[in-house]
């Protein structure tokens, strides 16, 4: 199987879907002539022309709303946000329009649109450009939130997202775009709403997604070597809908759980998942569900502080030991 970058996987998904359906088009800042701020859409303007690869002004509320309107009227827009941090100026368009129109119209409209872009902390971008929006969107009925961790998942899930008749918030990470992974030549799609057991284990369940998956697998290796703790690592892949069944099954087996989350501790994504599952797993738990999250501060600019505020392999290892009473 060829090994390709995460960004190439995203591009392959978009190109294949645009070839498959003329209603699919890409829109965003610098997606066309500049070939993508992070080169995800490189070459797509040349391939599809300006009708279907639309450079927008820096105008998130405008083009996100435009996308929703176009989706209501039969198109299937892919809206690239250079950073999910910029979605805040378009919040109303996602929360009120994309998510609510179907419900408020009594099911008369569907909104098949994908909003995609980099989420979370990258390298020293400062507090404004480092937001983790997972929980902000995953809490909204009407939206679907997907956060793949590998090129293979990114391609398969983006294709499904584009084909979905619901608005999808697709969370990538600038720091994952160079990651390489095997992606088959043959066409494939992956299901939204199904978690992936990245490593089976019996002692503790580690829940993670997106950028945190790699870190958790490293932590699991260290735990196996140093503590003989056999951790099960579950990549949630989709945050809404959440694959509760996979989570509950795993915890029923391991009786312990650690949620690793790049978000803040209070009302963050991890906090939301914790609330969702703690009641249902109560009798299976031998220890409180542990969490590793960011420190409760804005994201600092300084490189070392920025690293220190985030989850790390060491923090995951520590927390797992704690819930395993080691």
């Amino acid at each position, binding site marked *: 199987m060829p090994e390709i970058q995460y960004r190439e996987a995203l591009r392959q998904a978009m190109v294949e879907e645009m070839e498959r359906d003329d209603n699919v088009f890409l829109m965003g800042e610098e997606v066309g002539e500049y070939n993508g701020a992070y080169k995800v859409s490189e070459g797509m303007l040349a391939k599809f022309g300006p009708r279907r690869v639309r450079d927008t002004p820096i105008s998130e509320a405008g083009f996100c*709303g435009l996308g929703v309107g176009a989706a209501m009227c039969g198109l299937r827009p892919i809206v690239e946000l250079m950073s999910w941090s910029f979605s805040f100026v378009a919040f109303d368009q996602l929360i009120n329009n994309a998510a609510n129109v179907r419900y408020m*119209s009594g099911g008369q409209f569907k909104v098949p649109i994908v909003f995609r872009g980099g989420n979370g902390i990258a390298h020293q971008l400062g507090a404004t450009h480092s937001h983790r929006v997972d929980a902000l969107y995953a809490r909204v009925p009407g939206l679907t939130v997907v956060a793949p961790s590998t090129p293979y998942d990114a391609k398969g899930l983006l294709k499904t997202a584009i084909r*979905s008749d619901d608005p999808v918030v697709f969370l990538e990470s600038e720091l994952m775009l160079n990651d390489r992974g095997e992606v088959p030549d043959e066409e494939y799609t992956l299901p*939204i709403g199904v978690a992936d057991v990245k490593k089976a284990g019996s002692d503790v369940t580690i829940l993670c997604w997106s950028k945190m998956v790699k870190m958790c697998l490293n932590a699991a290796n260290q735990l196996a070597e140093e503590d003989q703790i056999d951790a099960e690592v579950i990549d949630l892949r989709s945050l809404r809908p959440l694959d509760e069944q996979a989570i509950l099954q795993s915890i029923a087996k391991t009786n312990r759980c650690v949620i690793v989350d790049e978000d803040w501790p209070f009302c963050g994504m991890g906090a939301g998942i914790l609330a969702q599952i703690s009641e249902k797993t109560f009798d299976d738990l031998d220890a409180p569900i542990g969490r590793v999250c960011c420190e409760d501060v804005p994201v600092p600019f300084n490189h070392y502080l920025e690293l220190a505020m985030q989850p790390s392999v060491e923090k995951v290892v520590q927390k797992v030991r704690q819930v395993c009473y080691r």
Partner: protein
Amino acid sequence: MAVANEVQKRSVSKKSSSDGRVERKRLRMMMLIRRFEERTYQEYTKPGQRIGGFCHLYSGQEAIAVGIASIYQKGKDYLINGYRDHGHSLALGMESRPAMAEMFGRSTGCSKGKGGSMHFFQAEVGNIGGHGIVGGQIPLGVGAAFSCWYKQTGGVCFTLFGDGAINQGTFNEALNLASLWKLPVIFIVENNHMAMGTQVARASAEPDLSQRACGYNMPHRDIDGNDIDVVIDELTEASEHARRGEGPSFLVANTYRFRGHSMSDAMKYRTREEAEKARLRDPITLYEHHLRERELIDDAAVEEIENEVRAIVDDAVQFADSSPHPELQEMYKDVLAEQYPLQK
């Protein structure tokens, strides 16, 4: 489309059609909307409040909605609106029954009782909604126009909002995108001179709202929104401009709402004199007067229409009131279009 073809240049449009049938239809629709809104007011204020929530009445602004409907091409055009959306929905062909039932929150409402007064939708005629957040719908209208452009359907999107929405960021972003991409949008400001309770002059640094389009390189006009003939003429020009692929236009249709912003509005910001003066420019009275002058209607015809719209609205209220509330299960429906886990 027949409706579109019968509208011609402003200089000729005041002339009668051969038998006045079209004009009487327009007058009838304006009167139906008025009757509907005034009855809504009554029902809303009755003890027991069968209509709940926010409710914004259109009385006094009917010429704009009916004017748009006169040139609207069903099947390819779209209309999007803010929350003062009853009039346009009726004008585009929504029956009074589902409209009234929606306000009653009943399962027979146009949105199954899940949208309410501010969220009327009718997909099959391209009515893409009443929208509750001031200015939030303007980019959606541009998106609808984008779909017309993308598929080259020749359709346009009538994008409506009030003078209050102009000061929102979305207004500026939407106008810029529409003009930059030459999209077939007609932006229509229904300027009733009052953003909730704030007069235009207290909210917009530029009191001439049509000037607000100057930075976006598109035709812009300030028009009499109470004269339906004027509205039709101006909209015809703007829509032809758009259909030719020449991009958006910006029309400020000056009008006056007779009722408060919403039901709880005591309208302390208005004087009695101002309101009485405005009544003299009631779009229905004006149009009726024109039609009488042109001998297209008489007392008997007006009375007949009055009786007819009263019966329609009475029936709608009765229908709404006797309709069931949505089933509890309905709460969980229409959240998503797909079943999950989803693989396609």
